[in-house]
């Protein structure tokens, strides 16, 4: 009661209002800053602590001082300068100390003690201020109110700090701020209630209200300045920090080179899209894009040019997709696109087509013209999967298939593609096993003289029966063996075995063995050949190695060296499948070739197809003039045989004259031949 009547009757209400406003705003700003202080450590904490202490101390002191100036006493009043100033310093220093205590981390009750210190600081400030206030009259203090005021402010301040540290996230700063304001105001007016002045008789002059009003205004302004500065610093810091955080978040989620989304953002987006698909049934499409012929750019034009190409490709991809789609760079030259809301194949197809079109357009990079293309694999959710892993895998399978079908194209995922890949995986594993266990069979196709009457050689052909998938054509398993690095090993086994077999044949029967381009690049090949011959005791002139043009294309210097070494041992070299590739005539004299084998695609069109007929004739003439032997492969009809014989091929080979058979059967064929001859 006394407190309320003290506020209403003994104070000028205008002053009280200004003090209250300052107190509440000051407290709110102070708690905001204090909260920030608690989050920091080290030097930053000291800065924040300083700022908080000044704002809170300033606001407290100003509240007290302005309210006191508004205190109406019927007696003259003077103020003690040094004491007034020290009261302000006590507020700032005490609150600063309280904050330091409150932020001790290991101590559970730190906020309570810190808060209590702040409360004590406020109280000390108030009563020091009161000592500075000299009213010419009989001053009386009510000890009960003094104690009540101190207890009240200590409890409220402790509560405020505790609330700030432990309250619910939302609104805790405001709650703490109001508690602090209540502590300050409560202390002041309870403290003032403890104070009564009875004017001395004879003096009736009151306080100089005009001078006090000016002083109050000045203090109010300065305090507003302090509080405002504190608030500005807080917002400035928050802005800078959030800018920094935004930038860091951007860096974390984006590819530095192209500024596209990175793998992480892509993975998150894909997961969230899959979740949305399950929740709302929203379809989307996943496209995997891989650049064709990108690596040579880095090699020939340098990495800066390669990087520029990637940046251009990124921009073109952004043009190709629809607004809002996510384009991510997930690897060196791999991109992934999530196209939202696309469910039907036509839409996805047009996006894929646009990607391929735009990427394949020329680029001018550092004055050079660069032309690349893109392969795209498409998986549509939910048809092709609903889980991120599954969709990514399926889009990758589709991409692989696009690459396999000649690049610069797109493929949609199909379950059959999965089967093809599974088949390949099984074959890879079985092939590896077969290699360890020598599960290959060798068959021999007899090569006849052009009459078709006499066997003069045999071509060794490799056969493999996969335990799981049955008979596999060499055209399927040889590329796998090449890719898996098994071909040299298989080749060596074949050479050894065939030489052994051939050693038991009559001396005039030659042996032809195919050598893959990969084997030809292996510098150990001449040694392997020599060992096979020596191991079997086979004369080198009976062996002929068949190579294809592709072997010479890739690295002709290395191939030439290997071939010359082999030729020196007496083994002959023949060029297989002649006429289908580049058929570069320069190979014929640059390389130590002694035989050309005309590809069966020409032979099989004989004799009716005029074009093939001319080609076969031309090759035969070429062989005659270059002193090369000619073998025609794939003879199936007697009219083909007649044609070949007429144009002077030396040897023939084909189903008409003899299918590939086992070694035993081949030996049988030769004995029957010699018997009939």
């Amino acid at each position, binding site marked *: 009661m006394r407190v309320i009547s003290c506020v209403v009757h003994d104070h000028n209400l205008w002053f009280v209002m200004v003090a209250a406003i300052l107190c509440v705003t000051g407290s709110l700003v102070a708690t905001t800053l204090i909260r920030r202080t608690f989050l920091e450590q080290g030097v930053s904490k000291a800065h924040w602590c300083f700022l908080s202490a000044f704002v809170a101390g300033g606001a407290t002191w100003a509240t007290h001082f302005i309210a006191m100036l508004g205190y109406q006493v019927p007696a003259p009043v003077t103020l003690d300068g040094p004491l007034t100033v020290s009261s302000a310093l006590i507020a700032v220093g005490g609150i600063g100390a309280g904050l330091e205590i409150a932020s001790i981390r290991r101590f559970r009750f730190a906020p309570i003690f810190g808060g209590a210190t702040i409360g004590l600081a406020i109280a000390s400030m108030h009563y020091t201020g009161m000592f500075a206030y000299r009213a010419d009259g009989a001053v009386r203090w009510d000890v009960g109110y003094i104690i009540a005021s101190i207890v009240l402010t200590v409890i409220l301040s402790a509560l405020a700090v505790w609330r700030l540290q432990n309250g619910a996230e939302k609104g805790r700063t405001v709650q703490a701020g109001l508690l602090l304001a209540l502590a300050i105001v409560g202390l002041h007016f309870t403290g003032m209630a403890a104070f009564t002045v009875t004017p001395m008789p004879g003096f009736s002059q009151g306080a100089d209200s005009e001078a006090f009003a000016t002083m109050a205004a000045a203090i109010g302004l300065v305090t507003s300045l302090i509080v405002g500065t504190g608030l500005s610093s807080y917002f400035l810091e928050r802005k800078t920090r959030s800018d920094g955080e935004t930038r860091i978040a951007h860096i974390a989620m984006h590819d530095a080179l192209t500024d596209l989304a990175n793998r992480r953002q892509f993975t998150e987006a894909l997961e969230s899209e899959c979740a949305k698909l399950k929740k709302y049934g929203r379809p989307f499409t996943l496209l995997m894009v891989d650049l064709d012929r990108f690596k040579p750019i880095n090699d020939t034009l340098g990495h800066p040019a390669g990087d520029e190409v990637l940046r*251009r490709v990124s*921009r*073109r991809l952004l*043009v190709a997709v629809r607004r809002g789609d996510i384009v991510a760079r997930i690897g060196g030259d791999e991109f992934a696109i999530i196209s939202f809301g696309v469910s039907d194949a036509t839409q996805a197809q047009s996006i894929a087509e*646009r990607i391929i*079109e*735009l990427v394949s*357009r*020329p*680029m*001018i*990079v550092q*004055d050079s*013209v660069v032309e690349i293309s893109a392969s795209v694999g498409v998986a549509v959710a939910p048809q092709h999967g609903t889980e991120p892993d599954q969709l990514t895998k399926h889009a990758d399978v589709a991409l692989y298939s696009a690459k396999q079908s000649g690049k610069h194209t797109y493929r949609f995922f199909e379950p059959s593609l999965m089967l093809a890949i599974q088949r390949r995986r099984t074959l890879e594993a079985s092939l590896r096993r077969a290699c360890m266990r020598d599960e290959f069979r060798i068959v021999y196709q007899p090569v006849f003289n052009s009459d078709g009457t006499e066997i003069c050689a045999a071509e060794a052909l490799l056969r493999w029966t996969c335990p799981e998938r049955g008979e596999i054509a060499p055209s399927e398993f040889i590329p796998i063996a090449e890719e898996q690095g098994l071909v040299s090993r298989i080749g060596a086994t074949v050479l050894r075995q065939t030489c052994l077999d051939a050693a038991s044949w009559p001396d005039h029967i030659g042996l032809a063995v195919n050598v893959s381009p990969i084997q030809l690049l292996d510098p150990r090949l001449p040694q392997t050949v020599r060992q096979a011959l020596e191991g079997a005791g086979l004369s080198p002139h009976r062996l002929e190695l068949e190579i294809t043009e592709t072997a010479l294309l890739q690295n002709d210097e290395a191939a030439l060296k290997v071939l010359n070494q082999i030729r020196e041992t007496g083994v002959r070299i023949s060029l297989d499948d002649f006429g289908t590739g580049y058929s570069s005539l320069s190979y014929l004299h640059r390389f130590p070739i002694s035989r050309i084998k005309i590809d069966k695609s020409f032979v099989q069109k004989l004799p009716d197809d005029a074009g093939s007929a001319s080609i076969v004739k031309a090759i035969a003439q070429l062989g005659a003039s270059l002193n090369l032997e000619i073998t025609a492969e794939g003879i199936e009809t007697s009219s083909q045989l007649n044609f070949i014989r007429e144009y002077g091929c030396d040897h023939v080979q084909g189903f008409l004259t003899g299918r590939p058979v086992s070694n035993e059967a081949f030996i049988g064929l030769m004995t029957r031949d010699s018997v009939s001859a």
Partner: protein
Amino acid sequence: MPLTRLLYTSTSCLPEQNGLTVQVNAIAQQAAERNEKCAVTGVLVFIENQFIQVLEGGGPEIEETFERICCDLRHKSVRLIDLVVVKERMFPCWKMQLLSDKHETTLELRDDLETISFLVGVNAKAAVEKIRKCLDAQESTTIRHNLVC
């Protein structure tokens, strides 16, 4: 500063029902405005749904302009025919002159355009020279005021 001349061809993807001439005019107009800012000059030839464009300017500007052209979905089958460093511009006064085959085109011009279309596939330099000749012929028949050299 070295100058670059670029020649490319492409096939239009413009929807025919909206009036091709209007659309092609708009493209040439837009190009002219852009080119003025980066000192790129040239000619756009449009014949039988095919664009043939010559661009002249500084290397980086040409690179940038061509990249923008390559990001445009209003055409397809973009083929870069020629990219050469030249001493001087062959089209210094044309921001992006349009030569196109429209209804009111004279028979002579149509012939010329067909020749250009043929030459582009055979000899880039001859094609560019023919385009220049064609422009000069046009200039002599129609007096143009808006060209500032």
